[in-house]
């Protein structure tokens, strides 16, 4: 059976990234997996041992479990955003890969879907590796890895789109730092990776819920630790996803096509 053209083309772009990944496996393994593992060791084992247990939303748990689940979400954010922003900027601006592929039977639209799909895949795998370590340390049950998969993938797609939009709007590689410092790091610090956002003043809690990472963290903690489900998390996540994917694609088309 012949695979439909568009699906095949997107798959072809994904395979190009996968082949490049496999050619520099050691480099990519180090840059993809070491960072979340360092966070796990530092905050999970180090700070976790200092804090011991915490009680949040009526649930008692070890701080290590709490932080492990937060780092799953943080991994999705960092891996998705940085691959979508710096990775895509290098591919577009320096390597001109998008331009080279998009004059073959694969269209620019398909190249961009393939880019997002790859960025999301890589971030999802990194997050699942963190989850796997959590299973190994007894903080999560093995079936969590499966239930986490759709949430990690959708949020990875979202943050990859955020990165790609950044690449599309940035005139130079230095400009990628603006959303990195004004959006990504504040999300990392204020959306509940390290502490329950209930500890923040009411106004800041509302601000935190505006940012997509809070929804992702909430869903990850529901699935891994059984914390209460926040109903607003899913629609917020989906709205961000749709908006950011549209913005990312539009910005890249505007950037590349006159």
């Amino acid at each position, binding site marked *: 059976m012949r695979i439909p053209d568009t699906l095949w*083309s997107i798959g072809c772009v994904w395979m190009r990234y996968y*082949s490049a990944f496999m050619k520099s496996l050691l480099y990519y393994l180090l840059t993809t997996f070491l960072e979340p593992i360092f966070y796990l060791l530092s905050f999970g084992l180090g700070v976790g041992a200092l804090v011991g247990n915490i009680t949040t939303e009526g649930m008692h748990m070890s701080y290590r479990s709490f932080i492990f689940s937060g780092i799953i979400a943080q991994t999705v954010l960092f891996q998705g955003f940085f691959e979508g922003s710096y990775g895509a900027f290098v591919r577009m601006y320096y390597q001109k890969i998008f331009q080279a592929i998009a004059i*073959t039977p694969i269209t620019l639209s398909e190249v961009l879907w393939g880019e997002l799909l790859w960025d999301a895949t890589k971030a999802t795998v990194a997050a699942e590796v963190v989850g796997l370590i959590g299973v190994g340390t007894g903080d999560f049950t093995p079936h969590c890895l499966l239930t986490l998969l759709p949430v990690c993938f959708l949020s990875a797609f979202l943050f990859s789109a955020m990165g790609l939009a950044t690449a599309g709007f940035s005139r130079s590689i230095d400009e990628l730092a603006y959303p990195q410092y004004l959006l990504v790091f504040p999300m990392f610090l204020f959306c509940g990776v390290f502490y329950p956002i209930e500890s923040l003043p009411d106004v800041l809690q509302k601000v935190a819920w505006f940012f997509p990472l809070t929804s992702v963290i909430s869903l990850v903690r529901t699935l891994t630790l059984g914390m209460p489900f926040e109903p607003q998390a899913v629609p917020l996540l989906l709205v961000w996803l749709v908006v950011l994917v549209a913005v990312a694609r539009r910005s890249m088309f505007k950037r590349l096509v006159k």
Partner: protein
Amino acid sequence: MNPSSDPLQVVHLSKRYKSRTGSEVEAVSDISFSVALGECFGLLGPNGAGKSTTIQCISGFYPASGGEVFVDGHNVHTQPKQARRVLGVCNQDETLDSDFKVLDQLILHATYFRIPKPEAKKRAGELLERFGLGEKSGENIENLSGGMKRRLQVARALISQPCVLVLDEPTTGLDPDVRRMLWEVLVQSRSEGVAILLCTHYMEEAERLCDRVAILHQGKILDVDSPEKLIAKHINRDEVEEEVRPGVIWKRKPNLEDVYLKLTGSRLGVEGL
């Protein structure tokens, strides 16, 4: 489907876009030409004449503001996949995929055209030999010289065995020997029936390789014909005089550069135009 048999047809193509400052730029203005099988057609003009924009419209990467482009009868904007299956493009910018070695580069590019891997390997090996890059097949791209990269990029454009080959300034900045090698490849491709669109600002290259030439200036085609006919029509002299430096005058045969200068209203010290 366009009824004409020419594999590349550009019909009343226009391209306007907004510049960074917000002003409207008409880079290509109502140009029409076609390239037949086994013909080398030159698009001749200086930087900024609209050559690269024309190529981006022909490849379907830029949408046209007006007019149509047909490749093998397929409209590149409404049927991009069908059109690009038979189109090989070598851009002016270096667009080699630096994550892949020389041979893998060609094989990878062939997969974008759905060419099975064994066939892609065979074609890639043949092309590398033809372009004198056989010994470099396992090299990383960054280890290649500028001339080798350029050859590889042209080889990559041929991996799909296109019936239309579009080359944007393929020899700019190359040593004379590499330039001659590329010329030989183009002559061979033309003799194999490939329709070639060659964009260049080298008048000698156009005169030497092209069956017909379009003089492009500020997005408009000023005239189209064979180099000999263009020279006869616009210069109509056996000899022109040129002051190459103060007090030194050379007499020489007229060439396409003289035609270009005359058509665009430039003189640059050439007498008798």
